[in-house]
């Protein structure tokens, strides 16, 4: 699978309150959450993000609250994937569970500028900045996470497993 889109840049330690503020968590409706996605980090983001756009951020993306509303909001806002040197662990897990592709790449925040067009090959982990031609490699997705993706997410995985056992 290839993901191609324009880049929006964010800093380090983007917390889940910034991704979706708690004041909107009286609903889990993806459309409504998407309307406020990233607004405390960039209030215009919900209006300017286009389907397939890519977020490139600094280390520890998704720290703080465990709200799965964060990857839900990003996905519903049309974000194609998030690239960062590291992800907070609960967000990392939630992103896989929700089907939001994320890639760990140490040099991405330095190499990729806002507005650049980037293509990510999800299978090989190759990240190409099409604006500069610069090619980078994301950390490989751990085998167990690949298995989850192949099964169609955690719930499909556990249902398959319980089916196998019976």
């Amino acid at each position, binding site marked *: 699978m290839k993901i191609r889109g324009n880049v929006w840049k964010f800093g380090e*330690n983007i*917390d889940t*309150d*910034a991704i979706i*503020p*708690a*004041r909107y*968590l*009286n*609903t*889990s409706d993806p459309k409504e959450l998407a309307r406020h996605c990233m*607004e*405390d*980090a960039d*209030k215009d983001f919900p209006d300017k993000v286009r389907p397939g756009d890519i977020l490139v951020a600094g*280390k*520890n993306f998704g*720290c*703080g*609250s*465990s*709200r*799965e*509303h964060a990857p*839900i909001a990003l996905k519903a806002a049309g974000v194609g994937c998030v690239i960062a040197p*590291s992800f*907070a*662990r*609960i967000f990392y*897990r*939630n992103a896989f*569970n*929700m089907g939001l592709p994320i890639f760990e790449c140490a040099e991405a925040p330095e190499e990729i500028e806002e507005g650049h067009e980037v293509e990510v090959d999800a299978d090989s982990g190759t990240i190409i900045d099409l604006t500069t031609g610069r090619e980078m490699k994301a950390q490989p997705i751990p085998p*167990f996470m690949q298995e989850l993706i192949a099964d169609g*997410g*955690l*719930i499909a995985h*556990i*249902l398959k497993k*319980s089916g196998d056992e019976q």
Partner: protein
Amino acid sequence: MSRPMTIAEKILAAHAGTDEVRPGQLVDVQVDMALGNDITAPISIEIFREAGAKKVFDREKIALVADHFTPNKDIKSAEQVRTLREFSDEHAIKHFYEGGQVGVEHCLLPEKGIVLPGDVVIGADSHTCTYGALGAFATGAGSTDLAAAMITGRTWFKVPESIKIVYKGELQPWVCGKDLILYTIGDIGVDGALYMAMEFTGPVIESLPMSDRFTMSNMAIEAGGKAGLVNPDSTTEQYVSARASRSYQVYHSDENAEYARVVEYDCSKIEPQIAFPHLPENTVGISEVATVELDQVVIGSCTNGRIEDLAIAAAILKGRKIAEELRLIVLPATPAIWTEALDKGFLKTFIEAGAVIGPPTCGPCLGGHMGVLAKGERALSTTNRNFVGRMGHPESEVYLASPAIAAASAVLGRIGSPEELS
């Protein structure tokens, strides 16, 4: 003879049904308690139903606590709590709490003996790591992970490396668990323990009461930690024995267990800590704080809403008035704490000082309700996060500190220490 292990490794090994585990290994473990709240559990319930699940793995091992937007702040929040209530009725969930029974989940569950030493707990709330103070392996997860655990009674973990933090020396006046954990996060950073189990040890930890230990474990996530554990001792035993209604197993780290990192602090050099906006790692000692005027002070939450926290605040506020034009909001974290604070006269002290007393709720900590900040307002809070917009308007500010600093600051109208009060 298996390899020497940390407490985190021992608990995971036992719950995976194996003799030993190593950091990096994936384990499929049995869950002793699965927790959700009024924000996260509605998604889990929807996923549970979509998966075609007919029953929960064990109706006594699921806790649903409607504490975030309760008392229900608006129609949508009320709908979310109704989802929890209907699901709890349908599946006869033993530990469902709302209304007059509800408390802030991470204070309520230990208080009722619902989480115990040696447990594996996953909670769709990042501060689930609080129960590490009991010597449990407890960690936050998302709603999907909670749904999976509600169906199967199991979850998967990558066994984390452990980071051992040793606290030595004499505590300075007014320094408590909150200051130690803020200092630690300030030192190692908000991702200093990313993917790791933090283990709080040393003579200072051994001398701390459970309330301070809960405060420290609670904020392990603020350093990126997967868990924040304390090895159980007589203090733990005393707390738990009066509350537990099921058996539990106590685990301790082996002396020669392997740690990714060992950090040692001389606590005699640590003064009360303040975390400045907008990250918990932005900590400074109270003596370095210039004039920071405040609009609001909040005392409460899963971090510092326990009776010991209220006792310190009441001792400082007794016979004093809070500063003019400052709002002090006190939220005892559970009905039992509320009652005890009433019986001991703390609530009267707070009201006479000019405070507002609220119900047990997470409310203002996450900018939900009951103390939301306007644009440009500044709050000092005993809670755990000071991210942009955390307690209200994106241009408001949150400073984190202990109950003692909070009470003194409410009187002074600016960030300050009890030492400054006449």
